[in-house]
């Protein structure tokens, strides 16, 4: 476990005209569960590769517990990585796979056995200890990959590169739960890279939102969700993202625009902005009434409201905004908890 610091880190691929990552400043505490959230092309993979040692920063420094590791190769950094698909040694059993990172470092056999047993019980891999990966399910394989990354007791950092990608949607939550539990039990510094904001917000203590090679905001999931630093984050986080209206629509707000999340508003007869219902998506029922997402077309554009979905397309309705965030020039000005 280590404290990870990025000091003004930039990276440019050889032959490229622009930096892929520029001026990154980030400090991740020892034992923290941190998520890097960003779309494809934002630079997540590059950042991951800088942390694992596959790449070295073009400028700036990378520190593990205060030690400059910027030019250290991967094998000397004490980092482990879980990839998008299970990366395992197919000819070794589960127990042998787990033991491998310890054996290559010359750890004593009884210590290896102890660690392997510990990880097996943490991740409930006991029953399949002597099986080889080709006979395991995808979930079990990825679980083994996680175990392999955690087996070294002195591992500085565990990197997870969209680890739920290959797993079936219905089982994703199981792997998520296991990761959370194991991170807390072992106190390992984990950096979880993803484009899925549900994964980022459910896993992390703190989230860094990455876009176009720069970190836009670092904060707790609540901070990122409820007070995004700028409009991009307001839109990117949340499904669907924030609705934006000019401040003029809601008196008592100052700035260019206000942003409000679909569940921070309700459709009433007399609200702040009128519109026509263009689409109703019912996702569940509450008290036997349809509940879901209603799309309203207003003079300022489309607005999504989550809640009561007992509407038909074509009906007239009005949006009452209960809570919002104000923005000026794209950046957050104030949070208004009660409009």
């Amino acid at each position: 476990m280590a404290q990870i610091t990025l000091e003004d880190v930039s990276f440019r691929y050889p032959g490229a005209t622009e930096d892929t990552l520029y001026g990154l400043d980030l400090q991740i505490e020892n034992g923290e569960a941190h998520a890097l959230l960003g779309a494809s092309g934002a630079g997540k993979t590059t950042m991951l590769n800088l942390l694992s040692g596959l790449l070295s920063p073009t400028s700036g420094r990378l520190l593990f517990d205060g030690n400059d590791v910027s030019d250290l190769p991967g094998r000397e950094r004490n980092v482990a990585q879980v990839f998008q698909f299970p990366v395992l040694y197919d000819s070794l059993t589960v127990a042998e796979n787990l033991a491998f990172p310890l054996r290559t470092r010359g750890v004593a056999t009884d210590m290896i056995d102890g660690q392997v047993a510990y990880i097996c019980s943490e991740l409930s891999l006991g029953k399949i200890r002597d099986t080889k990966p080709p006979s395991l399910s995808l979930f079990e394989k990825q679980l083994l990959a996680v175990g392999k990354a955690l087996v070294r007791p002195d591992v500085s950092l565990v990197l997870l590169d969209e680890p739920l990608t290959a797993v079936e949607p219905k089982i994703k939550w199981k792997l998520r739960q296991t990761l959370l539990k194991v991170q807390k039990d072992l106190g390992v510094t984990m950096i979880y890279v993803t484009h899925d904001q549900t994964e980022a917000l459910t896993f992390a203590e703190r989230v860094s939102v990455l876009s176009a090679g720069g970190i836009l905001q670092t904060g707790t999931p609540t901070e990122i969700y409820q007070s995004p630093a700028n409009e991009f984050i307001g839109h990117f986080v949340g499904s669907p993202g924030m609705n934006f209206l000019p401040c003029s629509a809601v008196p008592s707000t100052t700035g260019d625009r206000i942003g409000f999340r679909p569940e921070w508003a309700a459709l009433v007869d007399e609200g702040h902005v009128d519109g026509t219902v263009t689409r109703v998506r019912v996702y569940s029922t509450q008290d036997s009434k349809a509940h879901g997402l209603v799309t309203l077309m207003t003079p300022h554009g489309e607005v999504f409201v989550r809640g009561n979905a007992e509407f038909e397309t074509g009906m007239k309705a009005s949006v009452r905004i209960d809570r919002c965030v104000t923005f000026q020039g794209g950046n957050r000005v104030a949070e208004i908890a009660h409009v």
Partner: protein
Amino acid sequence: MVLIVAFSAVIPLMTVVNYSVQDILDFNTRFFVGFDWYRETLNDPRFIDAFWRQIGFSLTVIAIEIPLGIMVAKGIPKASRYTPLILILLALPLLIPWNVVATIWQMFARPDIGLLGVSINALGIDYNYTASPIQAWLTIVAMDVWHWTSLVALLSFAGLSAIPGPFYQAAELDGAGKWQVFRLIELPRLRGVLVIAVLLRLMDSFMIYTEPFVLTGGGPGNATTFLSQYLTTMAVGQFDLGPAAAFSVIYFLFILLFCWLFYTSVISRDET
């Protein structure tokens, strides 16, 4: 499609089988002799000698070409500007007609004017492949290795290129050494490709004719007379169609047997 296979394969095959059970003196004078020719061939000492020589040759070349091919493949950079050039150069020996390969080596290995022959003799070793059976063998094996290692190398390169980057990355982070990477990541993933390579080399080397015939003529004596050459002598030289046909069928069955044994052992391992 079926008709083409019928004409090009099935009918000639049936004709040979037909001949193998008859004693043919001339086109109109034939006697049915049943399995006599088969018995005679299998007990023929020269056949048995040629057979063991053949086995020895096939196993030797495979034992050299497979590891050597893999090593060459590992040496080819995966994404360099020179990669296509290297691959083309490697492919060249495979494109040369087989009798030309043998002729090249015939001249190359000549103790009087060949580059190889003269060099070895200059080192003090008395080298003359037409006179010494061991040197004839070594020369033929060297020729085959030169000719066919590229096939294994190219197939292995394709197999290695298909291994996703993360496997190497994970091995690096695990602290794995080069040999462990080879044994645990590359070799298991090359298995499919190697099966094809071994199968091809096994069949081709078992049927080898042109190169040893041109290089050594089967000599000195019988030292490098392999199965196919003996068969040809019998069929074309001596015009013993009956025994030759029987020989052919036996030859064909051997090759089929090897391939089947190899195939099933691989498939059964695949299923575990």
